[in-house]
């Protein structure tokens, strides 16, 4: 299964992923429409600055997902088919336990509401919007095996090049 992988060194902090994420979770599905919607769409990825660096932070769709564990209504659940942790807005009572449980701050609230929003890995898209929008390749949509293979390849190159 492909996941959103992060190559931190490539993040320039441009926030294109944030913008694309918000648009892909808007009603109109396009930028010029999204900015005029009554309730502005909410991004589900956050570019966190730290010193001169920037790190894109998003939901990791954990195996032992604390947010799923603490959810009293079953609004937060795991899709067994894809392994993604998803959120059903209709069942959400806005208690905020999932926010507390998430160690990454990847779950936030919808504007003017206690109902939460989180990454759903863009189920209608082949590649999540954030990955599509990243101009530098800091965000990748690849399997964890491929991600690790690339790191090993990088290491091998470093060791063998003169």
């Amino acid at each position: 299964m492909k996941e959103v992988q992060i190559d931190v060194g490539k993040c320039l902090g441009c926030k294109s992923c944030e913008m694309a994420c918000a648009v892909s979770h808007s009603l109109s599905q396009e930028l010029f429409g999204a900015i005029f919607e009554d309730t502005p769409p909410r991004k589900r990825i956050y570019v966190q600055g730290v010193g001169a660096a920037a790190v894109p932070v998003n939901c990791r769709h954990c195996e032992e997902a604390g947010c799923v564990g603490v959810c009293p209504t079953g609004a937060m659940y795991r899709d067994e088919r894809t392994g993604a942790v998803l959120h059903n807005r209709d069942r959400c009572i806005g208690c905020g336990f999932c926010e507390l449980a998430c160690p990454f701050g990847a779950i936030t609230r919808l504007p003017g509401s206690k109902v939460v929003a989180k990454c759903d890995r863009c189920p209608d898209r082949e590649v999540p919007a954030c990955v599509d929008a990243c101009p530098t390749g800091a965000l990748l949509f690849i399997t964890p095996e491929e991600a690790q293979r690339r790191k090993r390849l990088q290491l091998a190159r470093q060791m063998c090049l003169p």
Partner: protein
Amino acid sequence: MGERSVDQASIKMLKKAAQEGIETAWERYEKQQPQCGFGLLGICCRNCNMGPCRIDPFGDGPEEGICGATADTIAARNLLRMIAAGAAAHSDHGRDIVTTLWETAAGEAQGYQIKDEGKLRSLAAEFGIPVEGRSKEEIARDLAREAMEEFGMVKGALKFLERAPQKRREVWQKAGIVPRGIDREIVECMHRTHMGVDNDYVNLVLHGVRTGLSDGWGGSMFATEFSDILFGTPEPVRGRSNLGVLKEDQVNIIVHGHEPTLSEMIVLAARDEELLAAAREKGAAGINICGMCCTGNEILMRHGVPVAGNFLQQELAVVTGAVDAMVVDVQCVMPALTGVAGCYHTKIISTSPKARFEGAEHIPFDEHHALDTARKIVQIAVDNYPRRKKEFVRIPEEEMEYMAGFSVEAVLKALGGSLNPLLDAIKAGQIKGIAAVVGCNNPKIPHDRGHLLLTEKLIKSDVLVVQTGCAAIACAKAGLLLPEAAAQAGPGLGAVCRALGIPPVLHMGSCVDISRILVTAAAIANALGVDISDLPVAGAAPEWMSEKAVSIGAYVVGSGVFTVLGSIPPVLGGKKLTELLTEGARSVLGASFAVETDPEKAVDLILEHIAARRKALGLEG
């Protein structure tokens, strides 16, 4: 390739480019996707080094830059800088023409002459310069000096503003946006947008309109009027358009860019017997000069020189493999050209000290040695002819005749010496109104589709269309600039065109020649005793891309003409700013912008506007 262009010649060359592994603007556009949302909305600011700053358009992040600038402030400042750049480009072009006239009058320029003495004398009279018993050189010297002063801070207001209706001038005075000096307004744009100066989006936009006006009624108007003096005032002329104008058996030289000072001389040099003999010696049947973009418009208006294409065809012209030299000066010349040319035998020759291109051969052009330089350039093209790679030559057969050359003077002549026949046709409802369809190409829109859809529907609805720039070239290629195109017009407009022998789409020149449209609109308003904003007229830029188009938009709306933009300007991130441009401006200027990416809907907006204006004037539907 049909999604990229509606022009068959371009589609063929796009396919050829793909086969030959040539990357064009369309591939580069694809590679830029998705484009930065902050940029598209105009809410990133790089005007100081505390930044860059950007505003979150969804209210989920910063709402102010480090200095406290809001989305409206930032988007307005960015817009003002675009206007400044556009006005600078047009007025610098104007300045070069003024300088050329100055040097021609002094006998210091080579190959130039004062071709339209009548126009020189009437302009001199307009500027209060004595003409009785004086030589044309003396008058031209004084007139050029007067023009030079318009660029600075001597006068307090531009002279050509007096051509506008009294009511319009009062609008400008009331809003405090009477342009004082061409360069001055541009400098003030840069000052106001510097960190910590003008942060009021309304105040910024007002100055933007003033700067635009200094272009339309200043820099561009000087470019137009002085070019007419030097090179002749255009009269209806026929020629051919599209890539099919390139000749397999001739030396093909494309002049691309904007200023006629160079292209006029190239046209002259190409008729030089010695050079023609040299071409024959190399096995060519002749020397074929073709234009592109506004340089093309300048020489097609005055000489009927063939025009090879518009903005998005510049790389495709090289892809034909048949261009021996592409001579460029300034504006709208893609730096990618030299890379594409490197795959063929084509030489890209840059000529302006203001515009160098990596990989181009630079032949500095100056008025003092204009003809010699032009000869040298033509010689390079002639020498390059034998280096053509036959296997890569493929010229598409598409070419189409056009009729151009509709200067204000030519329009009046076609009408029999007065505006009355046109006014009568408008009053009677034979012609519902006039729409100016102008502007560039933009890969965001299928090449030429916006121009053609809009123009075809407008003339069908009995709206006379006037054009300049790349829009006009698009319509030339589609056969809309011919008197025969009256058959595609509605019954009223069609009848008028047939009676006068004119096309339903009038080619008025290059982008600086939108000043001709302003003069025409002012003359119509004056004849009816109303303001320009009262007229059943509208503007449209269906495929605009350049900053010059933003300046044009500012002066067209500033002159009272409702204008529809087909590609979205980078301002929507400033909600109050957007509201001002699309609504609020009406109460101050009597006109505003609309943004409509669908050409069909854009036509409806224009027709509704024209109908409303007709009703207000008490004219039949």
